[in-house]
Structures are given as C-alpha cells and as structure tokens.
C-alpha cells in the first residue's frame, strides 16, 4: 500500500504542475493578438544588444524610432553563432516584422538569401552591402568613417605636444582599418599643410585608396574587441615611444587605453570611437580629446521611420561628413579655436571634394 500511496503522491504532484502549465497555456490563446503596430526587429550579432558598440547602436536606433512614432513597436533576437542568423531572420519574417535590421558583414549571406526569398520584406543591414536581386527591399547602411577619422587625425596632430600620436585596432577588418587609415591621412595632411612633423604610430597604409570593402595596410591590432588589458599594454607602449594621444578602434578594448592614460597622468589623452565618449563613458570625459563617431543610431532610426511611413528606399546609404553619417565630436579637453577652424576648413574641403582622405596623397616625411 505504501508504494501505491507514493505513486499517487508523485502522480498528483506531477499532474498539479503540468495542469497549472496547461491552464496557463490555454489562458493565453485569447490575449495573443495585440493591436497591429508596425514591428521593427533587429537581429544582433553575437555581441548582443549590450555590446556598447554597433549592436547596441542599432537597437538604440529602433528605440529612437519608436519614441518618435508611437505606432512602432520594436524587438530583437541575439545570435549565439553564425548558424543562428538564418533562423533568426526567418523567425522575424514569420512574425510579420515591418522591417528587419541586421548587423555586420557576417550577416551578409544570410540577409541576402532571406531578401531574395522574400523580395517584399524590408531589410536594413548595418556596415555591409549584400548582393541582392532586383526588386528586393534592402537598405545597406555604410559609413565612410575615414572622413571623420581624417578630422580626428588633424585634431590629434594639432593637440599633441610631443608631435607623436598613435592608433591601434581590434582586428584588421575594413570597418576598423578605414578609421585608422583616415586618421593617418589627417595627420599627414596636417603635417603637409601646416609644415609640421607629427608622427603616427600603429598604422601604415598600403598603396592605393581605401574603399568600404577593402582597406589594407600594416598596423597594431589587439586581436579581439574585448581584451582591455592588451589595450592598456599597447597604449602604454605607445606612450613610452613618445605618443601622447592614442586612438583605439577596438570597441571596449579602448577602456584599457583610458586606464593607461590615467596611469601615465596629465598630458595623455584618448580619442574615442563610434559613439561619443563623453556620453558612453561620462566619468572619463576629461581624458577624451574627441570622438570619431559613426552614425549607426540615426541611420537605423531613419530607415525604420521611413519603412513605417511607407517611404522606405532600397539601396545603399553611405554615411559621410555631409549627411552627418559620420562626424568628429569634441571631448572634455579644451581645443584651441585656431585648431577648430583648421578642422572646419578640412571638413568643408572633404565635403566639397577638394581634400582627399587617401593618406597616399600626402606622403610621409
């Protein structure tokens, strides 16, 4: 009899829990359909929405759009590996997303495949331009960050008291090296135009001009976008080689550079990347000479808003200084107005097309 009693207890407990679940499952069928809002959906890379970099910016772009247009709802799916891209995108297609935002060149193939299979589905992809068939609705968001990097180079060269500045990257991807290339070009332009001799460490451009897809050269790379200790070591090395301003293009690795600057003391500073350092990292604002910003957030927001309004345009959007898709923002260190006007001149020249951002136009001395 004891066995039977225990049997009943077990079955009872099990049934109770399962029953509760069943009831709750049944209860949801009624509330499933909400009001039909325009859904904006982002598939993030493996970094997820809290990477303080472009995944976070893309998600923030969705939030901004939802703030401006109350008819927009937003959601995200993060990928644990590249094998997740396709099912994540398909999952959003079946959830009737108005626009699907994908992030990074790694999602190129998955996005192109989904767009070709669902031509009427609207996509926006950050930092990449997939090859898709005609009639598809894909907006490629790309940024000529070497233009703002160029201005950053002028700023750094003008602010350096040791006549040496430095840059380093996370990994040698074009989206990274483009910044570094523009930075070097800016420093060389400054040297040539104002007859100075400021040196740049950490990046030597290859021959020819850089494009959004290819930007070759040799330089210093941490090997990832997470190892802050390596960033600190590299920055300290640059300081010991005479540099006083360092431009890390490596996401959160740059925090290691701030630590190194603090250790080295006053007179050392950091140029931030992607999103304004004095906003992303307020506490360290006084260590930032400026930020070479990339407008992922506003361009994603614009794509979402236009898709919701029905004015969505497929094709390539290239962020430039002209359309503020990339920009130089000043940091917590006071910049002399003479230097600011030099930067403004260069900016106008780049926009007008009279100043090239190709470093090979200004041979190193």
């Amino acid at each position, binding site marked *: 009899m004891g066995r039977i009693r*225990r*049997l009943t207890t077990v079955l009872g407990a*099990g049934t109770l829990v399962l029953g509760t679940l069943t009831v709750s499952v049944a209860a949801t069928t009624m509330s499933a359909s909400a009001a039909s809002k325009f859904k904006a959906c982002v598939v993030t890379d493996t970094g997820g929405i809290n990477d303080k970099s472009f995944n976070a910016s893309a998600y923030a772009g969705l939030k901004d759009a939802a703030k401006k247009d109350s008819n927009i709802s937003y959601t995200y799916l993060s990928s644990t590996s590249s094998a997740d891209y396709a099912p994540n995108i398909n999952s959003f297609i079946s959830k009737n997303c108005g626009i699907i935002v994908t992030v990074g060149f790694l999602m190129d193939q998955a996005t192109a495949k989904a767009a070709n299979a669902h031509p009427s589905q609207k996509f926006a992809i950050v930092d990449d331009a997939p090859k898709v068939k005609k009639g598809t609705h894909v907006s490629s968001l790309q940024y000529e960050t070497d233009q703002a990097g160029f201005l950053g180079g002028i700023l750094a060269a003008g602010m350096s008291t040791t006549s040496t500045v430095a840059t380093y990257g996370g990994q040698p991807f074009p989206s990274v090296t483009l910044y570094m290339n523009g930075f070097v070009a800016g420093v060389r332009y400054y040297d040539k135009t104002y007859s100075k001799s400021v040196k740049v460490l950490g990046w030597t451009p290859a021959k020819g001009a850089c494009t959004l897809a290819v930007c070759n050269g040799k330089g210093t790379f941490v090997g990832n976008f997470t190892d802050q200790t390596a960033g600190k070591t590299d920055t300290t090395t640059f300081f010991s080689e005479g540099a006083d301003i360092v431009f890390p293009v490596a996401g959160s690795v740059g925090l290691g550079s701030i630590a190194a600057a603090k250790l080295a003391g006053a007179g050392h500073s950091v140029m931030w990347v992607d999103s304004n350092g004095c906003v992303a990292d307020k506490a360290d604002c006084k260590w930032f000479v400026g930020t070479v910003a990339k407008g992922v957030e506003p361009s994603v927001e614009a794509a979402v808003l236009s898709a919701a309004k029905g004015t969505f345009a497929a094709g390539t959007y290239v962020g430039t200084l002209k359309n503020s898709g990339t920009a130089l923002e000043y940091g917590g260190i006071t910049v002399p107005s003479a230097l600011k006007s030099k930067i403004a001149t260069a900016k106008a020249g780049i926009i007008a097309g009279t100043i090239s951002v190709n470093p090979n136009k200004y041979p190193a001395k």
Partner: protein
Amino acid sequence: MSEVTAAPPRPSLWVRYTSSSPIVVTVFALVLGLVVGALIIITTTPAVLDAWRAIFHGWDGVPHALNVTFNNVGAAYRSMFTGSIVDPQGFWHSLVTGKGWTNTLTPISETFTYATPLVIVSIGVGIAFQTGLFNIGANGQAVIGGISGTVVGSMLHMPTILHLPLTLLAGIAGGMICGAVPGVLKAYTGAHEVIVTLMFNYVAYAFLLFMVLSTPFQQPGQQNDISRTMDPSAQLAPLFGSSSGLRVSFGVFVAALVVAFAWWLLNRSSLGFDFRVTGANPSAARASGINARSVIVVAFLISGGLAGLAGVVQVASTTHYIDGGFLIGNAGIGFTAITVALLGRNKPMGIVWAALLFAALGVGGRNMQAATGIPLDLATVIQSVIVLFVATPVLVKEIFRLRGVSTASVQLATTGWGS
C-alpha cells in the same frame, strides 16, 4: 495491484517508474526547471509585477494579477513549445488545407538541426566519461574538425560521392589529432587531461583566427574573419531538398550512425568493455591485464574524432563557411556536450534524448524571445536548472517524495578527476 506484492524479485513497471529511476528524476528535473523558469518570468516581467503591485486597487486585484501571471508564463512556454516542436493550430491548418507545411515543420526541423552536431560531440564526450576521462577540450577539437573539414570542402573540388565523405573524414582526422595530444600526454607522462584539453581549446581558437585571416583559406575579396564557402558537393544537403526551406539535413543520418557505432562500441565490443572497466576501476583494469595506456589514447582518439566530426557536420549542414566566432562563447557545443552527456548518463540513447531536449529549449527560446520579448537566456537558465537537479537526485527525491535512489541515477560523474 496484488501482483506488486506477489512478485518480490522484480517490481512492476509502474512502481519502477515511480521510484526514482534515472528517467523519472530527469522528468521531474525538467518540471523543476520549468517552475524555476516561471518564477524568473514572474519576477522580471514588468507587466506581471505591475499587476501584483495593483492587487489592492480593486476588488478583482488578486484574480487579475493571477490572470496576468498565467498569461505571461503561459505565453512564454507556449511559444517555446510551438517554436521547437509544432504549433498545433498550424499543423491542423496544414493537414486540412495541405498548405503551409514549411512553416509547420520548421520548428521540429530546427530542433533536429541544432541537435545533430550536439548528439555527435556529446557521444564523444560520453565515451571519454565512460572510460573515466574528462574531455573538456571537445570544443577545441570540434573547432579544429570544422576547420579541416572546411579546408577540404572548400579548397578541393571533386564529385559529391568522394567529396562529402572526404570532408567528413577530414573533420574526424582534425579532431583526432587535437584529441590525441592530451591522450598521449596523459598515457605516457601522466599530465592531467583536464588541464591539457582545457588549454588546447585556446590553441584551437587562436588557430581558427589565424586560418580565417590567412590568404589561402580566407574568403577571396574579403578582409574580414570569414572563410571560403564549401562546395555544394561537400555540403550535407537539406533532407527535403533545398527548395523545401527546411534546414534539417542528411547530417541526421551521420548522427544516427554515430549513435549506432557508440552503442556497439560500448555494449558489444571488447574495446568498449576495456573502456568501461577502466572507467569503473582503473586499478582492477590494470590488474586484469588491460593496457591502460592504449585505452586512454584510443578513447581520446575516438572522443576527439567525434568532436571533430560534429564540427564539420555543423559547418556542412548550416552555414557552409566558418568565421572567427565559430563555436565560441554560447555557441560552444563542446561545452554544452559535457552537460548533455551527464544528462544522458553517458549512454548513446540517453544522449540523443538529452541533446534533443537541449536543442528544443534553445530553438524554442528563440521563438519565445521573438514572440514575447523574454530573453533567450531563460532557456539557458532552464537547461542549467535541469542539469543541477539531475546531478543531485537526492534533492529531487526529497522534493517529490520519491522512493530510494537507484544507483543508476547517482552514477553520473566519472572518476576522471584526480585518478
């Protein structure tokens, strides 16, 4: 019920299943995992918390709060189920109209797609466990297998009948080489396999980055960390044709072969017997004339080879290329394999069920996030809770008042550490 008392040597099936047999413990662990998951949903969903804060605002405050709670938890688990197994409504719709089969079958197809490499690598880990060896480096072995398989699959060109087997064999060989080093070091120098295999993961990751950023293997015209794409002749084709839209591939047959091989190896071969004896009692094995060194090396060769096969199956059935993030972080199936092998009690069929469960939770979690906004990480929490309770059968026994714990459910871990 009289036969229960009248059959002293063998209790009836019912009673055995309500005693704490391994299966019962696992099922109750699943229930506990879902309960913990529900508690997390309740305590982190703003709508639910708001409803509970407002219970004194009206006469129907409490029932309303209960209703909101059940709605949210139910929606989460419902979307998890419909996203990983089948959506009953969609199934019925397809059955009646004959349309929409792709959407109806996608959830189960995804579950199998994720489970396939997981089964293979978990069986590799399980075989090492049975031999008393901890193979913590299965992930690195899978990475190396993925690389070598992709090299053969993308840089050599030949007809499918040669190319696919050669690609898979290259993956096995890569994993074997990576697994052999710790095995040989353990057998001949006594270097602890946990340390060596763990450290080999980092060697594998560094090698991966080197490979995907080096000229012959990097995708032409790309400067990013992405490899060449496998030829169609080296890919594991979708089971129902590429136009079906379902990703489940011929890889499931590879996994089935591995399961059959592992069952034969462990239960029918003399080598498997040596493995199990060594795992159960290394001293007794040595005393009875089993060559401990060769057992260790061979077990690591098989374990590493299967991990490598899992790596190449993962590439050949899903992305067809690898990138710098291949199997890194949360995607590290070689680490998930350790828990899957534990959950499956190192037995081939047990591992199949455990891998399917883990895959279903992961795939369903994705659908849950897309549908309800509850983060995918909840699936990981549920997986962890299940493993936690399976690893502590005594706790499950106490919670559900099960009868005595059978030895099978306790015998989870191996004697590898420190032996």
